[in-house]
């Protein structure tokens, strides 16, 4: 569920208030939106994906509240990671994902992988 609206990063653009499909946030004029209905969060990560400044963190835990530490999330590269992986945000493009997929596939076709493990995993 949504666990963090970073007060230092948020620019009060309120995009998250608009895009959240389950209406979890409330607008707070001049301030960062508040997480008003956390238990309605469906853990779809879309607010994170749309946040232009990577101020939001949706924890993977869908059914219970967990404590998160903003500094730790930054250090682990987790703030904004989903947005980048979608190819969204400045310096990224979904087209790069597609190119990389094609590249990898072409490489696998040209150089098939031979597993060093000769027997199946089990």
């Amino acid at each position: 569920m949504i666990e963090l609206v970073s007060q230092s990063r948020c620019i009060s653009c309120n995009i998250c208030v608009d895009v959240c499909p389950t209406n979890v946030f409330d607008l707070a004029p001049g301030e960062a939106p508040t997480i008003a209905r956390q238990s309605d969060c469906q853990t779809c990560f879309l607010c994170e994906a749309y946040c232009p400044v990577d101020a939001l963190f949706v924890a993977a835990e869908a059914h219970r509240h967990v404590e998160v530490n903003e500094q730790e999330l930054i250090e682990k590269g987790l703030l904004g990671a989903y947005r980048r992986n979608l190819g969204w945000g400045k310096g990224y493009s979904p087209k790069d994902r597609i190119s990389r997929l094609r590249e990898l596939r072409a490489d696998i076709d040209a150089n098939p992988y031979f597993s060093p493990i000769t027997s199946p995993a089990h």
Partner: protein
Amino acid sequence: MSIKNNDSGLDLTADVLVIGGGPAACWAALAAQRNGAKVIIVDKGHLGSSGALAASTAGSRVIPPVKELRDKVKFERYALGGHLAQLEWWEKILDQTYEHAPKIYEWGGYEPPAFKEGRPAYGGGLQGPEIMKIMRKQVKKVGIEILDHSPAQELLVDDRGAVAGARGIQRQENRRWTVRAGAVVLASGGCAWLSKALGCNTNTGDALLMAVEAGAELSGMEFSAHYAPAVKHASVTKNAYYRYASFVDKDGQLIGGASHNGHRSTSTIAKALLNGPVFCRLDQGTEDPRFREILRIQQPNFMAAFDKVGINPFTDWWEITLVLEGTVRGTGGIRIATEDCGTTVPGLYAAGDAATRELVCGGFTGGAGPNMTWATGSGNIAGAGAATYARSLGDKAATRNVRAVGGAGLAPATSSSTTFDANQVVKEVQEEILPFGKNIFRTEAGLLESLGKLGQLWEKVQTTSALETPQKAQRAREAAALVAAARWSYFAGLERKESRGMHKRLDFPKLDPNQRHYLAVGGLDKLWTREVPVPGEIVPEPTNSSTSVYASPDVAKLDTTKLQVQAVAS
């Protein structure tokens, strides 16, 4: 502060009102507009991020009109679905999808996928969030009016019983909206009973309740027990990668039969889960690091659930559960009664997961491709049909006498002093419908017991006093829809006395050839079913279509042609 009355609300008119905010709704709106209609589209959440696709991803089956290629798709689930699909419908849907689906790439500024043997020759390209962002942009570009955060609550019906619009609330504005329209397309998704299946909590069966209140019928509601494996702590119900999974119990013993030739056995996993925890990792054929990177790039949402908690899904064991996806990836929904995706009620059309997908998938899941294809095809057909119907009404469309026909969970005009705790009702419905012990392994006694409890809940949700916030009003109406949808599912499940598709009866474990029919279901206080014949005999499978596109490739060989197909389909 209660919701303001009509006087201060939005009053709008349109030729076609589309209810929903996913791909089927967008396609319907665009098709209606292309056919000359003035269109308004309303969504419960935000068009572009609402619904099962936006949070996830899915690919349409874009297949040129070549018999051999289309046969592969048509017969892929024909037997699995108990031969309830209609191959002529598949052909129509594939025609529409072939024509329209590639436009997404064009609108988004992407190079369209190269086709190889009629299938996109690369996959994993566009994710759900990107597809829906493009669709919103296009809907706006052509001038269609969008109302976000504006859940529809009830339909408007004219004096002769034709649907003539809808009304609802704008939950962020705290006011009502009313749209009078020549025709309405219901495309607001299926029902996953607030299970938190990925992106599905906006899909609370509202369209089913609105349709039945207006006199429409549902079909295939017995095929509503679709469960997806999911990381136990999270919401990510993406299925595709479990074909690379090993499943073990708490002692590390492999669970036999959980995954076979790329087909996952939900009931095997369910049985194991009833005996204790089940763990999983993606270690079958995923040794090549380049392939792991492909999997990461293809489904960033699947990987997010692991990355955020520091699990390596290829090497670490993680605990799984089964999450109900209900009719979203089941096939039950509003019964389609006409060739243009009309219902049994004039002026009312249905598309996407709100409609039954039995016409293409029978009683088998429509997940991993067919549902998305259906959304594209049925959206386009319904939108065009609704525009044509609205035009036939001429000038009188907007001046008709109308009345709102919603009931359960809504505050009546005459004030009511009784109310109910919506969250408690949701919890009690979930206790009957979410446990796979009840929903997958069905028996007459179990279904009757659940129906008894659900019947009591239905009585409870009939009246409510005016609620102080739009959120509470909306949750009350959703609770009523969840109860109604659960009752239709279990009642149809009770009446289908056999096992077919995803409907499994422990007391009738075999398919009965004499029950190859649809079950229409409806009714509010008193439920009913009736048999609707499937036209034509069972079509024999073409002998040369043995290579099902659903059958998984031998992953150890890394057959990349097929992997690309899987990636698009997943």
